[in-house]
């Protein structure tokens, strides 16, 4: 028996089952197509359920999947069949709330993709190779956000050209949208 609680994967899908960001920590799905097949199965199994107020849970193919939805974002955490369900739910809640904090309450697919860097960092801070690294949403978001804050903070120290470049960057970004 696996003694240390372990996470098999964390998935963030959109309302059609497409990937926004996913992270696998187990070799159970060796190829991309195996991963996609798993995501499809999870998505179709859960799409009709209402997981908007409470975290929901299901079991199939000897995996336990806990999930929660908000707007057009579907959050999933998968564990083995002997895993403590409540630990999985805690990890999911940490991920879910951290994303909420990082997107400043605008949790939808567009916002998530626009801040994909934050989402990826967030995944990186929650689980490392299957071992739970942190499950407290505030701590996770804090760790992720400190960087973006730092990046934006020393604006005063930047040279005028750099500041202009940054501004132009922001402008083009918003125009491109």
């Amino acid at each position, binding site marked *: 028996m696996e*003694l*240390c609680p372990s996470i098999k994967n964390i998935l963030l899908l959109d309302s059609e089952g497409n990937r926004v960001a996913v992270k696998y920590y187990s070799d159970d799905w060796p190829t991309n197509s195996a991963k996609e097949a798993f995501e499809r199965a999870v998505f179709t199994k859960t799409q009709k359920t209402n997981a908007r107020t409470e975290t*929901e849970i299901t079991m199939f193919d000897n995996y336990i999947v806990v999930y929660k939805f908000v707007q057009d974002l579907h959050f999933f955490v998968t564990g083995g069949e002997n895993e403590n369900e409540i630990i999985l*739910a805690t990890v999911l809640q940490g991920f879910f709330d951290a994303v909420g904090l990082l997107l400043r309450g605008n949790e939808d697919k567009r916002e998530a993709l626009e801040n*994909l860097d934050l989402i990826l960092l967030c995944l990186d801070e929650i689980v490392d190779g299957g*071992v739970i690294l942190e499950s407290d949403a505030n701590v996770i978001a804090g760790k992720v956000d400190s960087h973006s804050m730092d990046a934006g903070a020393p604006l005063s120290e930047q040279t005028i050209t750099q500041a202009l470049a940054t501004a132009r960057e922001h402008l083009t970004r918003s125009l491109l949208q």
Partner: protein
Amino acid sequence: MAQPLVKKDDDRDEEVEYSPFFGIEKGAVLQEARVFNDPQLDPQRCSQVITKLLYLLNQGEAFTKVEATEVFFSVTKLFQSKDLGLRRMVYVMIKELSPSADEVIMVTSSLMKDMTSKTDMYRANAIRVLCRITDGTLLTQIERYLKQAIVDKNPVVSSAALVSGIHLLQTNPEIVKRWSNEVQEAVQSRAALVQFHALALLHQIRQNDRLAVNKLVSSLTRGSVRSPLAQCLLIRYTSQVIRESANNTQTGDRPFYDFLEGCLRHKAEMVIFEAARAITELNGVTSRELTPAITVLQLFLSSSKPVLRFAAVRTLNKVAMTHPTAVTNCNIDMESLISDQNRSIATLAITTLLKTGNESSVDRLMKQITNFMSDIADEFKIVVVEAIRSLCLKFPLKHRSLMNFLSNILREEGGFEYKKAIVDSIVILIRDIPEAKETGLLHLCEFIEDCEFTYLSTQILHFLGIEGPKTSDPSKYIRYIYNRVHLENATVRAGAVSTLAKFGAMVDGLKPRIFVLLRRCLFDTDDEVRDRATLYLNTLGGDGAVVETGADVKEFLFGSLDIPLVNLENSLKNYEPSEKPFDINFVLKEVKTQPLAEKKAPGKKPTGLGAPPPGPPSTVDAYEKLLSSIPEFANFGKLFKSSAPVELTEAETEYAVNVVKHIFDSHVVFQYNCTNTIPEQLLENVTVLVDASEAEEFAEVASKPLRSLPYDSPGQTFVAFEKPEGVPSVGKFSNMLRFIVKEVDPSTGEAEDDGVEDEYQLEDLEVVAADYILKVGVSNFRNAWESMGSDFERVDEYGLGPRDSLAEAVNAVIDLLGMQPCEGTEVVSPNSRSHTCLLSGVYIGNVKVLVRLQFGLDGPKDVAMKLAVRSEDETVSDAIHEIVASG
């Protein structure tokens, strides 16, 4: 009114599929990645490009080796930037690219610099990246920093080092084990997660040292663990310790139980649940121990959180299998879960209730389930059907309502697996509950009236043919069966014809009517249907005379085919048209042991229809062909059995030799499979000198040398012995490999002309009694046992002396006899003090043998066994006893 309009706009937006990555293309992004090489780095822009690269990887886009290397090198340039956010992305990117060893060197120094930096974030991340990509050699260089990091005052840094340690322990255990002291210190950390990670690592370092784990658990259970996750770990370790120490404390209180029970009052739900689950899984848990755990799980059942309800009901479901009465207290809460929104919870609740319910609650329960069945998926329905089947076997008096329920759901929509589960259940109920037979058969008849699955129709028809004639009024089934002949496809029609014939054979009163029906089938459009009708009309004497059906006709119609279908198929394929007709008696009857993979699925035991064991492909015909092609052995007759290969050499010696024992009626042939593993040698004229001085009844009659044995291409040499006919002679043979060895020039592959004679000692080989018994299973042991009769039954008792376990004793006897275990009785449930094992086989001379073994523990370790043998020949029954007595 405004709302729908807004909604429409949203919809249109979605159609355009807005995404910042819309139209993203790998080639273009790789081009963009050139900005990493700019002398004047723009962190914002670089971050964006990395995000794009990560996006592509995340979507499953694969980078070629060249692309990955190129990206990796440009990413390493970004270490020049001081931008925190960018550095963070660089770390993630490097981990995603999982660089090769020579690439790792490129970033090592940068990462090592970060690892000793003053910024905590750098230190923590650099450790994680470096440990992820590093190999053993580098690890020794950074070990010192890692040890420091473990006890770093910043919890993030400490956790990073500990988690990395957990991963590294898999690849470099000897290094990580040296960190014990630091890890131990970290266990005392005030930071919750540091404690969790340290505990996990410390336990993994010590997991093979039982005493150390014991000490760890007893010191920590006294209460210094703060983090809920660490507490869960501790509970798992504790139950492991309890499991392993169970043997030493037969009586009295279980050690550490108080700790587990105390955890039930913890404030974190995950700890409460972990403890409750641990208690329910204790070996031989008593109901007194269970009660507090069940109580907290019961509270979870009415929680507003689905996860808690699911966790609780799943655990209770497992408890219900072993301690149904302990769970009955929760039945009221469980019943309210039947209507749970979450179907997984509802299904678990129902199956638990079905396990714990009593006779009086069955009807109420069935009513609730009926409402629920329509809106769950097939896989859940199958679980429910199986639960209902076992409930019905438990309360046979309730068969009417349960059977009704099954027939109702049989009529509803459903896939094949689901329908098959229902049909299987009905069949089992018909078999085991005599009162349920007639209604059950009629339900099945109605089902095939409108059944879309050919497989199920034919299986049911076959079953009807066996059970139908034995009912009080067989004629009422005829209409259903004959309707199939009109309305179905050829496969089902042919099945129906066979079933009709069975009714004709068994029920004399129906014979004239059956003949009329069978004659009509002579005009069918399908060959098989017509052939069957003709065959049956002839065997039953369909010329109008109503005669008593002969025993051999009955045997022909009802007898089971005792030959594995695969063997029959192979023999038919090998048969070449000639004057000699195909003889079914020459088909091998032995069932080869099934590959493990097939045995794995528990609960999928063939119970219902179509239970015949799948005959796996065998090497037997290959042997048969090989031996019959050697003229010296051609007159030995039919091959009775070939053993599995027995190794005669250690692994990785110069010459690898194994032997297969082929048993004939009055001969034994040893087939030595030899492999030459030395490239510089060619062996010629290879023979095996067999010394049979310890095998008195054997006399060597022939041998067939192997002319040449080049490197790495296996060859065979044979030695044949004569032995008394039909007698299971045993003996020990010593073997010596003799050959002429020639040097081979490895560059040209040519052998020298002159060779040297040489010998090579092989291990001894024994012919044992088990070699004379074929593993042939029977589908229903009890029937076979009864029909064999007790005429030649021999019963005796044996003491097997002290054994490690009951299972070990059972396996030893099975191996000794070399017979086929039936009905899964080779598996001994843990902790049981007695066991019954059923074996069947065919003894040399084609004599069927059945064995019933009853094992019991006599004293602490001594195993006693009662052996009952039935066979068609008393000498064979005695012979089996002799094998055991001398074994």
